[in-house]
Structures are given as C-alpha cells and as structure tokens.
C-alpha cells in the first residue's frame, strides 16, 4: 500500500470520527517523539500521534499514526551500502470501542508500510468487569497478513500470516494492590527468513532459511502496588516459549514517586534473557536444512535502565489546556553481545 493511500485512510477515519455527534468526556491527543540510536550505527526518529475521542457516553474512537524515519544504516545494510541506506516505516491504526452493559467490545485495524515489508491486521477484543469491578476478564484476537519482500529484489513478494489470541484476568486484591495474569498464543505461517542478514555456510555468506511455521506461547504476571508517601511499585514478568525452541524471561521492575502532585518520577529496570533457536550456529558446514545469522535468534542476556519524568502543571503547559502533561524519558539498553542502544522520548498528552 502506498504512503498516500495510507494517509488518505487515516484522514478518512479521523473525519468520520469528527462527523459523529460527540459527548466530550475523556478526549485526549498524545504527541510523542522518540529517538533511537544504537552501536550498529542505526538512528531511528519516530514521531507519532495518538487520538482518543469519545463518540457517545458508551463508545469511543482511537486513531494512531506514526512514522519511523531510519536516518542511518545498520551493519547488515553497510555490507552492501557503504555510504548508508535510508528507509521509513509508516503505521496507522484505528479502533472503535462500544460498551454494552459491563462488557466492552473493540474492533479495529492496523496497516504498516515500509520499503521491503507491508502488513495489514484486523484486531478484535472484549473485556468484562465482574465482582463489583474488582475482577476484569479480557480477551482478544488478531489476524495479520504480511508481505516481506526478498531484498534486494523489489518484485519477489512473499506472504506471511499471523494469528494471535490472548486472555487476561485483572484482580484488585486490596485498596492498594492490583494484579494481572495473562496468556497469549500466536501462530505465524509463511516466509519468516531475515533477508538482510547472511549466514556463514561452508565459507560462503548466504541468506538464511528459517522454518515456515512458528507457534509462540507467552504467559504474563503483573503487579501494581501503592506504597506509602505517594510511591508506587510495578512488577511485570513474562515467560516465553516457541516451537523454534526459543525460551525467554523478562522481568521488569519500576518505582514511581509523586513530588507534590504535578511531578511524577519513575525509575525502571528490565532484565531479559533468551536461548537461541534450535537451528542457530555461529557457522554451518554441510547442507543444513535451516540456518540463520539473525541476531534476534541467538542466545543472549540484556538489561534496560530507564528514567521517566511526567509533569502536569496546574495551569497547563506551553499555553495548552489545563491537565496537559509533559513527558520525558531516557532508556539505556545493554546486551552481553556488546550491543547497546539509547532511546530518548518526549511527549505531550493534551486533553480536549
């Protein structure tokens, strides 16, 4: 899908939202800018806009539009493009939510477009409050059709489908404690080889070959605990396993504190480890059926440190509406492979 069609679709959806009779309640627009830079030489600038608008007292619309502007080249690109290579990725999504009794239904879609990849996804979900709103059960399903292109060719377009489902339970345990547990399953069929990375096979560098099916299982457990003195603890754990024999653990800890109300500071740490897929080797000999040089499929550990500041001045910020929040965040990612990345984010959340 061309970028112009994508923009047209987003504006059409936004216009549709504007044409419906509205009851304004918790409408807001979020503007965010992210800058990512890593030790491979990749710089990605990502502005995005996220609009949430109530249509009636029981329905709402969410529209999101974002761009990844990749302004430098990764080491996988530099092998063939010593002078650097530029790319961009555009994503747009929209979701309509309708509340019926204690149940919320949501349906939406997402499209993504980049030079050697395209995707379209249909997403549906539902959630229901039980037990005096102390328990919430949620579930959802998505179906995506993706089209990776066999780079450097522009016309060898492959097909890949992804089906994804999840179920979660959220429970308040006390006036200061909430927990959530979830399970997610995803099945991916079709072409899944990374065409940008070459594996070392019999002293030659070849595009890899990965299996055409992959089933992913994820369980998640999360805790939110209010502590004394306007301090909050968050703990998230994710356990992952897939049929390529990749296993991973991710443990995230966060501590937030409010300084007098308008200023919220958060410090976070995330530990992550993963095993390699069953067909990963540093180099291959003979005639291996599957082989890869994808850095995402090798075993490694990593740590992510983050600091976040959110300011909500009483009289608004930068002349914008009261309740406008300014957010600044810095993250530092380090893997034991030597890879490092720094991410800076700034954002405004504006109520209207």
């Amino acid at each position, binding site marked *: 899908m061309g970028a112009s069609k994508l923009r047209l679709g987003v504006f059409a959806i936004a216009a549709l939202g504007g044409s419906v009779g509205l009851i304004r309640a918790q409408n807001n627009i979020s503007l965010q800018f992210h800058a990512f830079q890593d030790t491979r030489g990749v710089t990605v600038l990502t502005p995005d806009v996220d609009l949430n608008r109530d249509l009636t007292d029981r329905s709402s619309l969410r529209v999101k539009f974002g761009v990844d502007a990749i302004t430098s080249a990764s080491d996988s690109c530099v092998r063939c493009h010593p002078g650097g290579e530029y790319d961009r990725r555009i994503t747009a999504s929209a979701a309509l939510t309708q509340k019926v009794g204690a149940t919320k239904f949501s349906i939406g879609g997402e499209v993504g477009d980049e030079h050697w*990849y395209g995707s379209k996804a249909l997403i549906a979900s539902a959630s229901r409050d039980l037990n005096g709103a102390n328990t919430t059960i949620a579930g959802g399903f998505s179906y995506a059709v993706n089209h990776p292109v066999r780079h450097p060719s522009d016309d060898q377009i492959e097909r890949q489908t992804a089906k994804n489902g999840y179920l979660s339970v959220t429970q308040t345990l006390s006036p200061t404690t909430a927990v959530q547990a979830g399970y997610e399953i995803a099945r991916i069929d079709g072409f899944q080889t990374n065409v940008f990375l070459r594996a070392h096979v019999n002293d030659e560098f070849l595009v890899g070959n990965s299996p055409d099916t992959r089933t992913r299982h994820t369980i998640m*457990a999360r805790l939110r605990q*209010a502590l004394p003195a306007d301090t909050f603890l968050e703990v998230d754990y994710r356990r992952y396993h897939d049929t390529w024999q990749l296993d991973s653990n991710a443990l995230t800890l966060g501590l937030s504190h409010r300084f007098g109300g308008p200023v919220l500071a958060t410090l976070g740490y995330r530990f992550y480890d993963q095993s390699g897929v069953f067909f990963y080797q540093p180099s291959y000999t003979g005639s291996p059926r599957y082989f890869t040089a994808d850095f995402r499929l090798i075993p490694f*550990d990593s740590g992510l440190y983050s600091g976040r500041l959110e300011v909500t001045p009483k009289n608004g910020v930068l002349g914008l509406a009261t309740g406008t929040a300014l957010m600044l965040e810095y993250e530092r990612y380090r893997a034991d492979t030597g890879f490092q990345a720094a991410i800076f984010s700034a954002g405004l959340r504006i109520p209207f």
Partner: protein
Amino acid sequence: MTRFVARCSLLIVFCAAAASLAGCATVQPWQRGRLSDRCMQFDPDTGRVSYMTHWQESREGSSGGFGVQGGGCGCK
C-alpha cells in the same frame, strides 16, 4: 543469575495466578482512591507501550504478552 530470575519469576507468576483465581476481594468504590491513580493502571500510556514493544521486537526473538498485536515490521 538466569536461573535465579527464572525461579523468582515463576514464584511471582504463581502468586499472581493464585490471587487472581481467588476473585473474592471486594474493594468498595469509596476505597478506590489510590487504585484509580495512573500509576496503578496496567499500560495507561498505550502509545508508549506500542513503541517500546516495537523496538524490543526489533532486537529480541520473543514478543507478546501485552494483548493482541498488529502485523509487525521488517526491521533489519
């Protein structure tokens, strides 16, 4: 370190699952002051979560756990 984290994590999962299955806690509306704070919500900033999961997926072999996903990317 990895085994320690895995064991701690499994313990957290077990506790959270047991607590969720109990389902008998009743917090009254007038007791929800602190629960309604943004810090007590799971993923209050969906745009931030979306960006975070996107760049992590571009570096790591696993993904998921935050609800249904879109079509991913062809990240190099």
